[in-house]
């Protein structure tokens, strides 16, 4: 596996784990009707999802900025 592919894989894993955690928090927040559930959804779940999505989008840009040596030639 080339270095950019390894980097991409690492970003994908980080992004995936953050999104899964965010989705789990969002699922848990739906169990009870309570203001704290609303806050957990907005700030914890939303924050983790946003971090995961941003990590994924950043990976696309970062990999495009640093193409593999084969692509240079």
């Amino acid at each position, binding site marked *: 596996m080339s270095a950019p*592919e390894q980097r*991409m*894989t690492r970003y*994908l*894993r980080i*992004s*995936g*784990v953050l*999104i*899964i955690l*965010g*989705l*789990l928090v*969002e*699922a848990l*927040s*739906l169990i*009870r*009707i*309570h*203001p*704290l*559930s*609303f*806050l957990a*959804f*907005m700030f914890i*779940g*939303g924050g983790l*999802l946003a971090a*995961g*999505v941003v990590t*994924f*989008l950043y990976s696309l840009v970062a990999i495009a900025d640093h193409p593999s040596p084969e692509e240079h030639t």
Partner: protein
Amino acid sequence: MAFVPDPTTLLYLLIAVSILLIVFLISRPSLTASSVGKQMAFVVLFVLPVVVASMGAAEHMRRSEQTEFCLSCHIMAPYGQSLYIDDPAHIPAAHFQNARIPRDEACYTCHTDYVMYGTILTKIGGLRHVYVQYLGKPENPIHLYTPYNNRECLHCHDGARSFVEGATHMAIMPDILSNQISCVSSGCHDNVHDVAHLSGLKFWQEPK
């Protein structure tokens, strides 16, 4: 009849599908080497989370309008009880018991701001309630941050025959419309959430 899942069930299904797809993708990262794999990664790691977050936000906004949501804080319990006072002169109770407002959205119907972006403003106000409840010191008894605006009453009553043809209302209509005379604190309809005297009052039993 076709089975239509409620929004919460649909959201749980979507969350479960998203998690499964993410686990599949991160366990086989080599999939993203192909063009189809990249598109799949975009859907799974961007489109699905955004859709789930949007649907979840809509569901939480809907839930936050429910009476159950407002009364889930202990401090609000007496206000919930006051909706059952067996006295037609008690304004919130009369509205609640006679279904002049939706019972499952009783608090929100009377306490939202009927202006542009009123729902958003009300939610921001709600965040302040949560801050005061958990990090501040709630006043006893609790009170509104700003005086109750006639606009909220007029949202339903303005134009109603019983309101516009009432002799008292007709005499002071400009002052009511301009909020110079308050509906609830002018001595006219001031029997509102009398939580200090709940123990001595009779309560309505909602039929099952």
